[in-house]
């Protein structure tokens, strides 16, 4: 109860609407424009390299014979991993009745959707002929028919990622419907000063009328709606765990030493939640400073996210240790060599970056003083994501560059286009996120108000 009262906002309902919708109803600030220009430029680089690679082929990137999965798969796993926190917050924490999820679930669900979209670009280019990418779906065709291989984890991935994207989108949109209705009804009081302003206002009214689906807040609709929120959470909970499990199957079902490990599914899921929460923390800290939402996203919220990072960070550290123990114990010469090579080989620097970022840095969260300090949290959240990117680098590159046959050993050297794609993917993600905070309510208004009404009613 003490914790719940600490989360209470204690503002009148109409003021909550105003506070949350303020960034949507005013002209963007200078900070927003600067951030938008930077990320849009990165996005332009991304699109440019993408188009160039369509003309020149995959040869412009650093992938070579032993290391066939370079930055693409690293970036893919990285972004899909980031996408996991949104559904964790909106579904799993919903089932566990964690009230602190309410003010961060909308933005983190948006983050999920954008991260999965960013991730999906990479395998699509990596297939080599992106114009035939629809062949990954098992539809009756005139090429034989040539069917997909239902026993391949790569196909499971197609199903997992597309299901995850669509379910997240449905969950997010249905959550937005009551808030769109709030926005629509607020516009009744607005008056445009100029003729163009009037036209824009009419367009805005029309769009909001369509996307709010004629929502009028009937209790009979809420009755079905609340049932849906529960069911979608119950469906999304195993879904979110399945997605990164299946991503890890891409590695674990192969026979490459360093990949062929049964610990991979839980290890990947813990890592995904770890990096996802770090990204949510980064975004929430920026959002709350930029839009003055300190009343809604409190220190308590940030502290709780810090604790999740601590827990999942230790799970990831456990998995790292376990991998080494299993390798030492395996009696497999190749397996033991791969892990020694990670510690001391040519890519040892990547391993040690990963180690310091992921194993050491979360332990600062043990101290209340540090996990309630926004600057510390912000730095740690970025450090963790750097570490998680390097984790995927270590898994992909160090396992591949030393294969069974020493004759086929080679080094992986990323080209400038690889780096451009990496930076550009952040551009794609942040551009979408910045547009989101301008166009949609970034905190779930109806859910915040439902919690407030709950506190109000509990008092009587």
């Amino acid at each position, binding site marked *: 109860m003490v914790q719940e009262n600490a989360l209470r906002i204690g503002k009148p309902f109409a003021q909550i609407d105003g506070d949350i919708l303020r960034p949507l109803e005013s002209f963007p600030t200078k900070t927003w424009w600067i951030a938008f220009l930077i990320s849009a430029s990165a996005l332009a680089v991304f699109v440019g390299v993408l188009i160039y690679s369509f003309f020149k082929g995959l040869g412009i990137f650093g992938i070579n014979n032993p290391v066939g999965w370079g930055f693409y798969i690293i970036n893919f796993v990285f972004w899909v991993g980031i996408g996991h926190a949104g559904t964790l917050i909106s579904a799993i924490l919903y089932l566990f009745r964690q009230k602190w999820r309410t003010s961060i679930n909308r933005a983190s669900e948006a983050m999920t959707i954008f991260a999965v979209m960013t991730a999906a670009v990479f395998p699509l280019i990596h297939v080599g002929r992106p114009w035939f990418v629809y062949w990954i779906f098992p539809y009756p065709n005139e090429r034989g028919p040539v069917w997909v291989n*239902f026993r391949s984890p790569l196909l499971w991935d197609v199903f997992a990622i597309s299901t995850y994207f669509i379910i997240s989108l449905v969950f997010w*949109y249905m959550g937005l419907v009551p808030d769109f209705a709030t926005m629509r009804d607020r516009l009744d009081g607005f008056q445009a000063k100029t003729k163009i302003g009037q036209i824009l206002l009419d367009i805005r009214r029309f769009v909001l009328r369509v996307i709010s689906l004629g929502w009028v807040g009937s209790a009979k609709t809420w009755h079905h709606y609340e049932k849906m929120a529960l069911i979608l959470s119950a469906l999304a909970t195993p879904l979110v765990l399945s997605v990164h499990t299946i991503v890890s199957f891409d590695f674990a079902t192969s026979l490459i030493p360093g990949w062929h490990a049964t610990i991979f599914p839980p290890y990947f899921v813990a890592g995904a939640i770890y990096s996802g929460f770090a990204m949510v923390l980064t975004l929430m800290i920026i959002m709350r400073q930029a839009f003055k939402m300190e009343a809604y996203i409190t220190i308590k919220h940030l502290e709780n996210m810090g604790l999740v990072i601590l827990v999942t960070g230790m799970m990831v550290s456990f998995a790292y240790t376990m991998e080494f123990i299993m390798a030492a114990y395996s009696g497999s010469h190749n397996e033991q060599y791969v892990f020694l090579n990670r510690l001391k080989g040519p890519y040892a620097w990547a391993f040690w970056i990963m180690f310091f970022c992921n194993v050491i840095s979360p332990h600062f969260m043990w101290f209340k003083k540090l996990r309630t300090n926004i600057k510390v949290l912000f730095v740690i959240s970025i450090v963790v994501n750097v570490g998680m990117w390097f984790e995927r680098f270590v898994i992909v590159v160090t396992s591949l560059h030393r294969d069974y046959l020493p004759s086929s050993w080679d080094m992986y050297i990323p080209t400038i286009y690889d780096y451009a794609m990496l930076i550009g993917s952040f551009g794609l993600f942040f551009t979408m996120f910045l547009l989101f905070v301008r166009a949609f309510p970034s905190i779930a208004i109806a859910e915040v108000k439902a919690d407030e009404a709950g506190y109000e009613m509990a008092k009587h």
Partner: protein
Amino acid sequence: MVSFKEVKEGLFSYEEPDKGWVAIFTKPQELLKAAEKVRDAGIKRFDCFTPMPIHGLDKAMGLKRSWVPFVTLVTGLGMALLEFLYILYIDVINWPIVYGGKPHFSFPAYIPILFEVTVFMGGVCTAAAVIVLGRLGKINRKPIHPRVTSDTFALWIGDELSRQEVEKILSPISCEIKPLE
């Protein structure tokens, strides 16, 4: 025996408010009490309008259980069955081919895909069920009160009751009663 009419009422519970009375409240607990009183008075044609879901309001109004979970179950499992038959057709009948020495019918490998399509179809159809059963999608609908999606709670009662009767039912609760044309 459940009659067809009852099933239909349970399915499509929402009714557009027409002629009648609208009581306006400013606090959720007042609306909750009012809904209980209206339900206990045995009135069938009434509805509540709230800016947020109110815990316990469905019980207070005496709403029937939602059919949404049933839709999820049927569509999710139905899709899983269809997908299973489809994979069976592809892998065993249409183009049997040996991959990696595995049998044509390799059920364990199908489980991830069957799970994903269950979640996909179940989730999408659940959202569609809310749109259909909650009678959403009528974009020109106007809310019963302009602030009902912001901070006002409203209760609508059909016009089979007179103003005095409505006032009598809601008597100790402070609210503003207006006619709805």
